[in-house]
């Protein structure tokens, strides 16, 4: 077998739970059978296209790990000397490289889930390997529950669940006490150190620990875990400055510091694999590199050469509150399992050390055992829609490994009900069935499907794609003012959604006129990468719209209703994300029904916000913000979402009285019209 050294491909799967049906005799994990087509499925969590509410641009977003499915398929096909897409293939969202000859298919968990919507028995596969199950993504959890059901129906299906966790028994008992197969991890021992007392400032302590390691420990690279982009950049700056001092003063070796987080451009992410710098002069102290990372480096990314891990014990975690309907990313203490995983990163190449910036008592008492799986921390409206489409009726007894709270489930059902994806009895409607075809959040899908009613499906399609990728605006610290000036060129006074659309149209214009879009984006502080991926998403969504016979149309640009139509169409999906100004000239808004007090995010391009705005996301930092807003008129709410804005059932308050006045005005106007 040829060795291809360059691609990091090892999976630290130290354990594997192997499922077989209780009646079957034990079997080796994956026999290369002649009968049938064993196709492996190697899911890596794929970032859901969009999360509602909460930060978008930040680090909880797993890096595009669809790349992993792709690169593994590539490597395996190379080693077996076959063409990629023939015997060995892959399928990720928006890209399918398989053929009739394919025996082995790599795909993300989300992709397999989507496939099973149309093939409830997964009849195309004779063997399914579910890798990285310990990450417990939403899709993995649902897949496991489905596979459990399917296993009862299909005796011939082989299921292998691979997990790198010490919590194997939970997996085993969940899968009817399936045989457990342990695969040794290739790790070296890691010595663990704690601080004798709790730290006052974990950021400063971690910077100091890194410097201390650099000054006193033998050769080996350092990995420091922090929570977010800002913190990481800050730490990198401080460490570099201090190291310069150390070199001048005490002849320390050189140290390269690299940040690592999800939104970092791939080229910069790649730099973490650079070799550590050489000693400054012959015989001098050896150089090393220090990587300051979010928890991407905890499981999904393996960097060789790490010998020292510094673990302050925090990470940013997504959390969803079904009462306020806000999904936010909060800095929270990690779990014990997570801490062990972090420590393990130090033992990849040789025995290592892990410095925990908390006491051993705190480790035992304050940290929870396992990180809450994603299904307990997410808005489930998308999931419920998928389950409905999968034919799961009994959401109460659906056998999930960790069932979510009833309230979260109720909220999801109600949201889908308001969006008319489910009827009052909870049955999937035609709209809901169509919405589930789109790899989008239900609100976005519903908006897209109903956009032809407002003669602007082309524009809504563009906006949906733009909302499905990370922020396209680039605002480097060094040139904030210039970036803001450039953004102002595209600004539309009535809404950030429209501003996005303007920027996209300008981008397409440059492409069509034969300009250099990359250069143009650079000059205008736009992210070429994100704009082109929005373009790609748009093409894919367009294809789905065409198969569902959703008409693509635009209002003529000269028409004065051009933008109004778009603003109205936005409400068809986002009528539940509306905020009303508390009093005229106040800066504080109140979200409708949830009564959260919010401010408008300073990055907005809306010149003078009306009393009513629709927002795309809710950002919870030290203050509560709504981001990406567009002005709307309250009349539209009553007209477009009469069920949600039914005044008879509306809770008493300012919002209700304001809406009642609006309703009164409409009635009077109609009366006058009728009188003539």
């Amino acid at each position, binding site marked *: 077998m040829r060795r291809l050294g360059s691609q990091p491909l090892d999976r630290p799967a130290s354990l594997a739970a192997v499922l077989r049906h209780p009646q079957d005799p034990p079997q080796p994990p994956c026999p290369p059978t002649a009968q049938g087509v064993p196709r492996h499925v190697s899911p890596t969590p794929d970032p859901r296209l969009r999360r509602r509410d909460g930060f978008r641009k930040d680090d909880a977003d797993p890096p595009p790990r669809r790349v992993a499915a792709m690169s593994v398929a590539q490597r395996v096909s190379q080693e077996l000397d076959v063409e990629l897409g023939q015997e060995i293939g892959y399928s990720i969202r928006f890209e399918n490289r398989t053929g009739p000859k394919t025996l082995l298919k790599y795909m993300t968990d989300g992709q397999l889930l989507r496939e099973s919507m149309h093939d409830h028995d997964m009849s195309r596969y004779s063997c399914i390997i579910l890798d990285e199950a310990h990450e417990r993504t939403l899709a993995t959890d649902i897949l496991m529950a489905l596979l459990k059901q399917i296993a009862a129906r299909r005796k011939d299906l082989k299921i292998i669940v691979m997990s790198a966790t010490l919590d194997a028994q939970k997996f085993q008992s969940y899968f009817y006490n399936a045989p457990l197969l342990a695969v040794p991890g290739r790790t070296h021992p890691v010595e663990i150190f704690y601080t*004798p007392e709790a730290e006052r400032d974990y950021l400063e302590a971690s910077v100091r620990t890194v410097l201390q390691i650099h000054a006193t420990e033998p050769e080996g690279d350092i990995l420091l875990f922090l929570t977010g982009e800002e913190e990481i950049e800050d730490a990198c700056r401080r460490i570099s400055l201090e190291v310069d001092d150390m070199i001048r003063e005490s002849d320390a070796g050189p140290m390269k510091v690299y940040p690592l987080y999800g939104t970092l451009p791939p080229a910069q992410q790649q730099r973490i694999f650079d070799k550590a710098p050489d000693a400054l002069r012959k015989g001098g102290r050896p150089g090393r590199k220090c990587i300051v990372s979010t928890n991407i480096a905890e499981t999904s990314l393996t960097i060789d050469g790490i010998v020292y891990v510094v673990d302050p014990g925090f990470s940013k975690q997504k959390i969803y509150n079904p009462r306020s309907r806000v999904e936010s990313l909060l800095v929270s203490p990690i779990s014990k399992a997570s801490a062990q995983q972090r420590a393990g990163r130090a033992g990849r190449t040789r025995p290592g050390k892990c410095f925990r910036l908390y006491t051993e008592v705190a480790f035992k008492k304050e940290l929870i055992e396992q990180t809450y799986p994603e299904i307990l921390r997410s808005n489930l409206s998308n999931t419920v829609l998928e389950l409905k489409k999968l034919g799961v009726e009994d959401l109460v007894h659906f056998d999930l490994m960790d069932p979510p709270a009833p309230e979260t489930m109720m909220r999801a059902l109600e949201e889908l009900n308001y969006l008319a994806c489910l009827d009052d009895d909870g049955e999937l409607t035609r709209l809901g069935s169509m919405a589930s075809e789109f790899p989008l959040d239900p609100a976005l899908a519903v908006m897209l499907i109903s956009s032809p009613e407002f003669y602007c499906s082309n524009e809504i399609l563009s906006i949906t794609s733009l909302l499905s990728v990370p922020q396209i605006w680039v605002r480097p610290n060094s040139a904030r003012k210039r970036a803001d000036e450039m953004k102002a060129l595209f600004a539309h006074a009535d809404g950030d959604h429209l501003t996005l659309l303007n920027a996209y149209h300008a981008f397409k214009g440059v492409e069509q006129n034969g300009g250099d879009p990359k250069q143009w984006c650079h000059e205008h502080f736009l992210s070429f990468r994100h704009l082109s991926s929005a373009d790609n998403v748009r093409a894919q969504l367009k294809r789905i719209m065409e198969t569902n016979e959703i008409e693509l149309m635009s209002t003529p640009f000269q028409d004065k209703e051009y933008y109004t139509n778009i603003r109205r169409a936005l409400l068809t999906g986002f009528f539940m994300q509306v905020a009303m100004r508390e009093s005229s000239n106040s800066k504080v808004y109140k979200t409708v029904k949830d009564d959260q007090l919010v401010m408008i995010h300073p990055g907005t391009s809306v010149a003078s916000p009306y009393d009513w705005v629709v927002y795309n996301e809710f950002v919870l930092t030290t203050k509560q913000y709504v981001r990406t807003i567009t002005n709307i008129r309250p009349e539209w709410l009553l007209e477009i979402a009469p069920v949600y804005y039914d005044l008879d059932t509306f809770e008493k308050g300012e919002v209700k009285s304001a809406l009642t006045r609006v309703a009164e005005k409409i009635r009077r106007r109609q009366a006058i019209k009728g009188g003539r």
Partner: protein
Amino acid sequence: MNRERASGHNPDAEDDDGFDPTPLENQRGFGAGLHKKRITFVPASASNGQLTTTTNSQQRPVQDISSLYLNLVLPDTARQPSPVPPEPATLCLPHSHPPSALDRSRMGLSYLSTHGWDPDGRRGLGAAQQGIQFPVKAKPKEDKLGVGMAGPKKGAVVVAREKERLLDAGKVRKMVHEEKRRAERIRTQLCGRGGDLERYLGPGAVG
């Protein structure tokens, strides 16, 4: 530039108002940076000194590779059946609980109840209704306090740490004088004015 850097990454030298009252000659020298302040570490206690995977495997002699890894994932404790708790000596009726505060008209609730979930049953979802009953909660963290460091309690008065001051002879004299006056005042308050106490106890009793 020196001065700026030295205070720039030494948080202790930074005051609230950003002004450092320390005269230039008293400031710590160049390079007295963060790495000079050592963070101490203690090794993990014996049982936990290394990642569990490595220690556990050394605990028991094992015959073959498969049992080695089985030992690794299923420690002894997990395989032994847990002892049956003794029967309680007293009996009591099951508690009745107040009904849940959920709005009964919610569409989601009616859906879940048609499938057998009882809002007052104090159960979760799942095959055996074993799921969590309430959503996972988290509170925003806005400080940099480390794990295990309790933040100031709500409503607690935060006492500002007194600034360090440089003293000279004049200041010391003033301080001593101040102290003397305070002691005098307390004594008069406690012992009364005009030597009442001296009259009772005889001379030399006070002071």
